[in-house]
């Protein structure tokens, strides 16, 4: 009997929430079209995949057949292209400062002659580390091209002395390193960044939308009490209030994932059910976070400001661009207040990294603990609001909640 009223109450609140959402198109947009649009913009940033052919300049002070050969070989490296030949260092400096190119390859005077005479001339590459990604990518291109050029020079010298080509190659390089990029053999970072950016976008929009919707109830006198009565208890009222947006968020997440797995070819090297379960716990946690902000602060504008101010910088704390292990203690600790942090790890583990399930189960466990703590906190606050309202008689619950914080 009791079960039936609970179920009925849940549906009453659920339907009220759906009607409410339909009357507030901006709230629906915030939960649906806006995250998809944001995701599409971010996707288009990385749409070209690996950055290739970054422009660099060359200053060839030697201008001999040997130095020209080196310049040609560097130009052939896939990461970079030689955009201009400059005549002096001043011109090169201006070009780097203004952003026409990312670096300068300097071949000194008499390079070939010195190399032949065994004087070990120096070849220099200057690169812009203020623009770190572009600078490092161009440096990677040059530094991967130059050693093989040096090896070719050596091998050519030995072959000139009558050594066979394969023997010369071994003599030049007695220790061969076979380097493998695990989980990402093509060194294409778009999968990692986009996998995390989807999560960052959804965390922001889901928590803001829930916060907005809950704050509208907290702000209106008696509204929380009506919800509770309608739901026939706190738990069914909370579920009925939150679930419509959960469904929207799940659909949006599914659309983004179809783009990621379908169009961008994000590999699914792990367990699909684990990924889905983790996504659900993540979205629910975002909602609870939004609801807590609404309950603590009350009226929508400040609640949304505080939440946006807290959640917007979370991308840095996720440890995608900069690894979490290298952060200071505060950041490692604070990163845990974002539902996205464990979810991003699990998502990357179960897609690109293809980690064993038990490694990810530990993270999922962490997510469940977070959700449990957040839910108990939410229920605790709601119970307190009800008690206060009961002792204060007719005082509206929204205002009764205010002195607590």
């Amino acid at each position, binding site marked *: 009997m009791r079960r039936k009223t609970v179920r009925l109450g849940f549906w009453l609140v659920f339907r009220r929430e759906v009607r409410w959402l339909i009357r507030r198109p*901006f709230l629906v947009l915030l939960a649906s079209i*806006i995250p998809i649009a*944001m995701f599409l*913009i*971010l996707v*288009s940033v*990385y*749409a070209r995949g690996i*950055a290739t052919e*970054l*422009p660099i300049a060359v200053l060839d002070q030697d201008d001999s057949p040997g130095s020209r050969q080196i310049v040609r070989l560097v130009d052939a490296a896939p990461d970079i292209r030689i955009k201009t030949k400059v005549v002096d260092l001043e011109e090169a400096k201006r070009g780097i400062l*203004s952003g026409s190119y990312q670096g300068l390859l300097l071949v000194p005077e008499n390079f070939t002659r010195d*190399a032949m005479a*065994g004087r*070990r001339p*120096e*070849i220099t*590459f200057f690169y812009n*580390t*203020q623009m*770190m*990604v*572009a600078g*490092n990518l161009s*440096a990677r291109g040059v*530094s991967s091209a*130059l050693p093989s050029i*040096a090896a070719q020079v*050596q091998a050519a*010298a030995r072959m000139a002395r009558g050594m066979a080509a394969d023997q010369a190659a*071994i*003599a030049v*390089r*007695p*220790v061969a*390193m076979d*380097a*493998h*990029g*695990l989980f*990402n*053999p093509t060194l294409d*970072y778009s999968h990692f960044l986009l996998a995390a950016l989807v999560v960052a*976008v959804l965390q*922001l*929009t889901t928590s*803001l939308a829930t916060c907005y919707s809950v704050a509208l109830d907290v702000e209106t006198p008696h509204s929380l009490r009506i919800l509770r009565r309608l739901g026939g208890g706190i738990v069914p009222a909370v579920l009925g209030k939150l679930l419509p947006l959960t469904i929207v968020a799940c659909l949006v997440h599914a659309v983004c994932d179809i783009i990621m797995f379908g169009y961008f070819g994000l590999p699914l090297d792990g367990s699909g059910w684990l990924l889905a379960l983790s996504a659900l716990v993540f979205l629910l946690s975002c909602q609870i976070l939004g609801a807590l902000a609404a309950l603590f602060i009350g009226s929508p*504008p*400040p609640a*949304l400001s505080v939440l*946006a*101010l807290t959640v917007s910088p979370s991308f*840095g704390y996720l440890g995608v*661009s*900069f690894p*979490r292990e290298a*952060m200071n203690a505060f*950041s490692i600790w604070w990163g845990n207040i974002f539902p996205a942090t464990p979810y991003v790890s699990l998502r990357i583990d179960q897609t690109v990294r293809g980690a*064993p399930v038990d*490694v990810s189960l530990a993270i999922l466990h962490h997510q469940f603990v977070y959700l449990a703590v957040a839910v108990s906190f939410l229920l605790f606050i709601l119970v307190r609001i009800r008690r206060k309202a009961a002792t204060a008689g007719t005082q509206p619950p929204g205002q009764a909640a205010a002195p607590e914080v």
Partner: protein
Amino acid sequence: MTTFLSVVRGELDNLVSNGRIFAIFFIAIAILGLYYPQPYSSEVLREVAVAVVDRDDTTSSRQLTRDVDVSQNARVVMKLPDVASAERAVFERRISGYLFIPQHFERELLSGRQAAVAFYGDASYFLIFSKLRSAIGTAIQRLGTNVVIGRLAADGMNPEEALAVASPMRINMIPLFNPEGGYASYVVPAVFLLIVQQLLLMGVGLLNTLPSEAPRVSAPPIVATIGKLISYMIPGVFLYLVATIIIPYVYNIPRIGDVWSSLAIAIPFSLAASALGLFLAALLRDALIVQLVCSLLGLPLFFMAGIAWPSEAMPELLQWVARLVPSTSGIDAAVRVNQMGADLSDVTGQFRVLWVLALIYALLAYLAMRLTDAQAEFRS
């Protein structure tokens, strides 16, 4: 002229008397200044953890392990018996890579054949992987060069000549402008200019959508637009100075640029951002929506600015769209002047874009204001 001055005064009154707007313009930057850079404050990523699977266990293999360990980018944290346990440690994120030295490594080296080692690095992170590969590559190169010199010396060549044969040219990679390679020096200046833009958009947007307590000064739209934009220069330049001088100072981020060139960018940048805010306010009309839109725009605008990902590598259409946002040219110009020491003449392109944007958005805001006035007149 008097109406113009009263617009400016009215706007400044509003700006100070409304607590929320005052907080956005003058207090939020302090909170964000403390909060935002924390993940990057350790600046440099040194000593990435690696493991060694040494199946040879000889003098040469142990020497290679030591060479990797002493390099400034990597640290050998464990020696593991097999590849499976090393893989497991990578999955658990306890190490970021491992070096596999096969059996008979030393025997191959001594016998003049090519000895092979394998390096497996976690390529999930661009920074970690490139650091690790260069650390291990350098250690192996050093071992290789020593072996070649040893062999040549055994053939009777003098050491200097042997070195020249083993390594005929020196390769020198010189990082410019951020020589420590600090991640904070790279991200923080750019992010804070974006924050300045977001705060200006939000502050100006709210100022023009929230009901004001003081009666609005009635002025013709052209005077109102110019008057408002002039008064927003105060929070605009203030925020710009905090972002380009105080924040870098607090986080020890190099700032070598000329202050006057930097200030010259502050003017069109804050004008363009506030004019965009004025236009957004006229477009969206509702304070809460303005606030939400501004908080959502931050993430995509940052990634469009060409800092996280080089704009050369973006689709051309997106490069054009990105240029319509003041932060794209503003961040580029300000970082080049402040952190790289460029002159204003090096960033004339970006500087001109900012002025053009300021004019376009001011014009759009003016037209929107005229439209609103006309509608109001029509209704009454």
